[in-house]
């Protein structure tokens, strides 16, 4: 038992347990919806965290991939008659491809240049989505056909809770394993010192590109889920604010902490719901709470708390 718990799968088991246990406390479908949203965003955040926390690259346009995924499941079934699940995969492949094409030149940039380049990419996607009204319905968006799996039409919030929860646990385990793989270890080396890793013979550009593609695919799947779950999609899914929200979730939860990705998503999805009781002051309070977190838990919620706990043990 002890050895099992001490393995690196411990966080994964804990997360799976959370997914299973939480619904016991859900009094209505609204809570399932919030739960599903948390896992959908957490999935995108895990992907972005791989890029930010491990490869040390900031993407300010990640919602662009969210948008590609979301509009794939909207456009695929409507214009090409593709089933939703196939459109989801097509969207993920497309996102990967776009990430490859975009990433090849821009991942050679360093520091702020990369951030600005990805920022431009995200804006570009949002502009295309709102201007190509013939395909996307323009700024008012378009409706998304329901997901149908083996003649079972997925609609209810609890069904989406389980789908999003399961996918998140899968994505979570994948990310954990990835970090223990040679690629993951080289990434961490790049994060610590790019020059040192170059000396060690690591192909820095190609490793960064790999992780950029993977994180784009995470975001794309999350975007597809979001669109299918809502049944309607608008260009703000790919907007700049969404990108910032994703980055905030990564930083708040803790860069380089996969568990932190979930925590970041929980905080920024659940808090706005809780704070509605304060009416006019909800935005101000949200800002205040995030500030307090960042001042007192500077490295992000999970890494900082872990450090504090370790301090107590000694």
């Amino acid at each position, binding site marked *: 038992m002890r050895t099992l*718990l001490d393995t690196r799968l*411990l966080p994964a088991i*804990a997360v799976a*347990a*959370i997914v299973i*246990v*939480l619904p016991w*406390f859900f*009094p*209505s*479908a*609204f*809570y399932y*919806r*919030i739960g599903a*949203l948390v896992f959908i965003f957490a999935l995108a955040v895990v992907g972005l965290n791989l890029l930010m926390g491990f490869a040390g690259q900031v993407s300010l346009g990640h919602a662009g991939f969210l948008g590609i995924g979301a509009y794939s499941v909207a456009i695929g079934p409507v214009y090409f008659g593709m089933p939703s699940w196939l459109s989801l995969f097509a969207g993920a492949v497309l996102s990967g491809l776009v990430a490859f094409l975009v990433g090849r030149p821009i991942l050679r940039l360093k520091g702020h240049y990369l951030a600005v380049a990805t920022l431009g990419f995200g804006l570009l996607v949002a502009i295309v989505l*709102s*201007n190509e*009204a013939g395909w996307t319905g*323009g*700024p*008012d*968006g378009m*409706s998304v056909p329901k997901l149908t799996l083996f003649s079972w039409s997925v609609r209810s*919030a609890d069904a989406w809770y389980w789908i999003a929860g399961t996918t998140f646990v899968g994505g979570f385990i994948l990310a954990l394993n990835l970090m223990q793989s040679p690629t993951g270890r080289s990434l961490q080396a790049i994060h610590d010192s790019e020059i040192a890793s170059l000396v060690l013979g690591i192909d820095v550009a190609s490793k960064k590109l790999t992780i950029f593609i993977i994180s784009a695919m995470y975001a794309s799947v999350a975007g597809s889920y*979001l669109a299918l779950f*809502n*049944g*309607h*999609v*608008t260009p*703000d*899914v790919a907007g700049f*604010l969404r990108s910032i929200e994703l980055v905030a979730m990564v930083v708040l939860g803790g860069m380089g902490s996969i568990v932190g990705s979930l925590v970041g998503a929980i905080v920024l999805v*659940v808090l*706005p*719901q*809780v704070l*509605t*009781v304060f009416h006019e002051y*909800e*935005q101000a309070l949200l800002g205040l709470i995030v500030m307090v977190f960042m001042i007192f838990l500077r490295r992000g919620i999970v890494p900082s708390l872990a450090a504090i706990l370790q301090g107590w043990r000694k």
Partner: protein
Amino acid sequence: MRTLRRVTVTAAIGLAVLLSAGQLASAQIKIGSVLSVTGPASFLGDPEKRTLEIYVEEINAKGGVNGQKLQLIVYDDGGSADNARTFATRLIEEDKIFAMVGGSTTGATMAMIPAFEEAKIPFISLAGAIQIVEPVRSWVFKTPHTDKMACEKIFADLKTRKLTTIAMISGTDAFGKSMRDQCVAVAPKAGITIAIEESYGPRDSDMTPQLTNIKNKAGVQAVVNPGFGQGPAIVTRNYRQLAITLPLYQSHGVASKQFIELAGPAAEGVRLPAAALLIADKLPANDPQKAVVVNYSKTYQQKTGQAVSTFGGHAYDGLMILVQAMQRAKSADKAKVRDEIEKTKGYIGTGGIVNMKPTDHMGLDLSAFHMLEIKGGDWTLVPGT
């Protein structure tokens, strides 16, 4: 592991307690609303929210509806359709609302429609686009006039002036594009030919090149500019600088004092369609809407200290249509109230006179718009409109 689980459980319970706080059941009729109070669409959501609050309070002071008080629950979607959908679910599942008056933007409304259709809750939207009520959905209604009607109004005015060939210059923002599409769609039916089309970005500061193209196009008799914000004001200024003498039509999107201020003397002679609310004091005394719009603008200005906008008026109409339907239904049965909303006849609101039908869940006709002309830095009603 144990501590982790304990933390999880505590967190979940804490969350549940927090979320349910302030939602203690009471014997009031709950009216839900999701509005873009903050964010890029706050110019819609803010007056809508204030209006709903003012009038719910007023209705309650007079004893409520059918002897029951109203309780208004407003959530702010921040301009995001995803948030709107989440709050719609919350209104339905948690707050258990009786009816919904809200949805500031078309995107938010479209995102919320499936939730209310499924829950069978009357939903009166405050957003503009025609696709909200076309095709007709049994539980969804809307109060604002559509872009299509604005185009038809402009085209009708052109016809009376015997002008049939026009040029169109439109903004590429959501409003400008949506209205441009509607104008292009209804032009053939109205007997109007669009000889040339130009567009500009929402942040462009000079439209001289586009207007020069229009000026050089032979046969153009008038120019129509669907747009929102400062773009139309710049178009108007450039238009005069190029000394184009053709009649210029703006849209209802700039029907505010701000437009006249921005465009200055160049705005002289510009025509545009607008709702009665903006010209409350200019309406003739025998206009059926006169009393309603004067009352609403007075109340709104008194309580908020701000000038009225048509958007707040849409919220007023939505609430009143709902309340009157509830009074006619004399019961707290959602299906009966829905039927009564659909039977709304001759309701005189800020946006026009509403006559709903099972095939028309908006119920406005072209009389909802008045054609205005700017003269001496102020609006004047074009006679016969």
